[in-house]
């Protein structure tokens, strides 16, 4: 049977204001993913803690009055993956512009997902709302479970009732919290203590002019100006700090080395940070150090392999690239006379391989290159070794 999933998200982003809600409004929103219906400010009412006290409910009012920006989407998404991608893009955006710290464990960024299913082309089905999803993984799991559950229900001849449900990460299932019948008539009316806020054009312009470049625009610029791949550009702009590290490094290493810088920020730096569970702000290597390293790769002083060794030393012991090269003797051999001498020695000691190569065995050539690299302790430039070897054997 063919079913179409329909998802709309309500994302609550706790604002990083100094004060609670009634003391001042927060900044306006810059980017507008097409799907956003509206954004409104609300205050956190506090929360009930059902799990922490056996047989009782705890009430945590610590966050009461904290301002939240709720961003409501259209029911535009058609899969859990799409919903996650939207939520991630929003997460990047709000942390990027600094209106939300994005901490999902602490509930600074959480989603309610409105999920329904229908036959393609039919009107929207009845939705159920999954409340308070505080990780992208849970968001995906919850929607997938809910979609399966709803399809099963309908195929078994049941009707979906409008309801609010909770996702239990332990069982991976959603469970009913309340149905529409229990819904309260909130009796909303304009609060006389909240006066209308008049936003002056000037003020909006001023905010707009002080907005940082947004991730989407920056991603496009990286591709256009530095010739980066979509993958690299998107990776670097997924986090404002990473993008800043990249641009800072690039400014020192030179734009010609953009691809190299991107590779190193996304590769070695990112891997090391992940390994040690550090944020980019906590990286022991500064953009200036990385830029120095990149320059030495670019000018041929370091092979990629040597560069990784230098990076390792920088990471653990600190220091500038040239000093490390000097101290550890990691400089790539650029003196071709020296390399030639070693090649001659290797050829003399490996007559069998030479013979095999001349008999047409390509593999033997690689073995010889390996021997030369070994004899130079990796300091020879592999392409130079290749070239010299070919000349000698040719």
């Amino acid at each position, binding site marked *: 049977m063919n079913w179409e999933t329909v998802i709309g998200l309500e994302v609550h982003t706790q604002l990083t204001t100094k004060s609670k809600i*009634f*003391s001042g409004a927060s900044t306006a929103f810059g980017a507008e993913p097409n799907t956003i219906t509206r954004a409104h400010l609300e205050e956190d009412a506090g929360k009930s803690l059902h799990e922490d006290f056996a047989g009782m409910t705890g009430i945590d009012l610590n966050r009461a009055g904290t301002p939240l920006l709720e961003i409501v989407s259209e029911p535009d998404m058609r899969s859990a993956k799409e919903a996650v991608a939207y939520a991630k893009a929003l997460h990047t955006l709000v942390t990027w512009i600094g209106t939300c710290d994005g901490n999902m464990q602490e509930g600074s960024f959480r989603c309610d997902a409105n999920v329904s299913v229908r036959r393609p082309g039919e009107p929207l089905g009845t939705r159920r709302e999954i409340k308070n999803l505080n990780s992208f993984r849970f968001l995906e799991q919850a929607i997938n479970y809910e979609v399966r559950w709803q399809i099963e229900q309908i195929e078994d001849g049941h009707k979906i009732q409008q309801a609010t449900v909770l996702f239990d990460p332990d069982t991976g299932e959603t469970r009913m919290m309340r149905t529409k019948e229990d819904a309260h*008539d909130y*009796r*909303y*009316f304009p*609060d*006389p*203590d*909240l*006066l209308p806020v008049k936003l002056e054009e000037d003020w909006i312009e001023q905010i707009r002019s002080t907005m940082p470049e947004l991730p989407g625009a920056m991603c496009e610029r990286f591709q256009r100006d530095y010739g980066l791949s979509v993958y690299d550009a998107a990776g670097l702009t997924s986090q404002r700090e990473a993008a800043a590290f990249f641009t800072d490094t690039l400014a020192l290493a030179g734009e010609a080395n953009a691809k190299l810088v991107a590779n190193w920020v996304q590769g070695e730096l990112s891997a090391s940070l992940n390994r040690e569970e550090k944020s980019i702000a906590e990286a022991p290597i500064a953009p200036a150090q990385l830029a120095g390293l990149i320059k030495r790769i670019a000018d041929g002083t370091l092979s990629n392999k040597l560069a990784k060794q230098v990076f390792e030393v920088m990471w653990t012991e600190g220091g500038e690239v040239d000093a490390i090269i000097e101290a550890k003797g990691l400089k790539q051999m650029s003196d071709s006379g020296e390399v030639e001498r070693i090649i001659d020695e290797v050829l003399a000691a490996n007559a069998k391989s030479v013979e095999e190569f001349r008999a047409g065995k390509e593999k033997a050539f690689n073995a010889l290159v390996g021997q030369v690299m070994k004899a130079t302790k990796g300091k020879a430039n592999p392409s130079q070794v290749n070239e010299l070897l070919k000349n000698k054997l040719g």
Partner: protein
Amino acid sequence: MAHSTLKQLADLLATGKTSSVELSQDYLGRITRQNPGLNAFITVDAERTLAEARAADAVRAAGQAGPLTGVPIAHKDIFCAEGWLTTCGSKMLHNFVSPYDAHVISQFKAAGMPTLGKTNMDEFAMGSSNETSFYGPVKNPWDTARVPGGSSGGSAACVAAGLAPAATGTDTGGSIRQPAALCGITGLKPTYGVVSRYGMIAFASSLDQAGPMAQTAEDCGLLLNVMAGFDPRDSTSLEREKEDYARDLAEPHDLIKPLAGLRIGLPKEFFGAGLTGDTAKAVQDAIAQFKSSALPRSKSACPTPGLSVAAYYVIAPAEASSNLSRFDGVRYGYRTHDYADLTDMYEKTRAEGFGAEVKRRILIGTYVLSHGYYDAYYIQAQKLRRLIAQDFAEAYKHCDVILGPTAPTTAFKLGEKADDPVQMYLSDIYTIAVNLAGLPGMSLPCGFDALGLPIGLQLIGDYFSEARMLNVAHQYQLATDWHLQLSPIMRMETEYKALDALLSVPEAGKKGTMV
């Protein structure tokens, strides 16, 4: 003397003829004698009052006295005052001792004015006779079988009886002006936003406004100087330049025609059916008084009073139903004793903690805000409110102040309207439009009916015209002596001092009691 004005007391203090402690003891003595009969105070705490009086005397001794330092004042029990029981006239808050001061209270503290006590009021300020108070009705000092008006009935009665030289009140639909009229004193409801509502227990937030109640317009001006001012803790508090509301009073004026050029608006709607003979006559006489010195205009149009009442009794209960939902027995105040679960606790707490009138208004408010009724009631009422404000704006193109009666009748008998909410609501028929429009309004004594009960003249001004209104009222009080007439209780107290000296009975100053 029991009938001394603030101004006179301030002069006595400034010239060293009395001290704040001595003054406070005088008033506390009167309260001890008269309050059991009047029930104007919910809480009196002599020790606390005298400690504040001693502090005020010390400030004066240090040469740092302000214009009213040492003059005591009573506060309506709607204002949170640190360390004081603050009940709002309700069982719901019968045990609530405020941990902080309302803005109004801290302003009076900063001015060095000791608190004489917390005055009785209709429960959550909902009422026009002070009969809805959990602490029992207040008696009118002019006739103790009659109501003092409400909701600031305790404040009006204590000033009229000489138990306090002045008191604070709040006015949501007439709660300063109507009791001022029924008790023969002067009261002012300022422009909405002039006095901060911070720490003032909310009834209907878009209408509530605090103001002074005293014996003269001049005293009201001095008190407004203390109360008014921007406060960031109230989002509707207005940021304006500080002004001296009594500035026009002290300045020399044209003695022959002190109000020359003043244009008076006389809306015919304020003189329709329902206005009884004596009240109508007294108000007409007052207007005649003004005609000799100002430019009367008789054609000014005003919102039909009946429409104001209708709009008000949708909007005020709507806001009240929201504001009063905070009283749930969880955090502070009354909580029922026996309950099965949380919902049961909420329900019993509210059923037992609120009185009948409060429940009636919560029900009305809940109803008009409910899904399906909102557009028909709440939205309609808000539109009417806008029209009322526009009508006033139109009127003020042609006049400076509007004159009329404050209340349709003089003080009625206790219990007379208690079972007829509509009749009770109509007590505020002339005052309510002012709150809906956010305008300033005053009531001042302008005569007596055949029974000797005081009649109030209402003065409505344009936004922020308090200084001018006070001057108009002041000129009237310079020319008349209605405001100088003493209620029987105050007369008794004025004579008591002499008697007291004769018998040399030691003055009161007892330990704090809840009365």
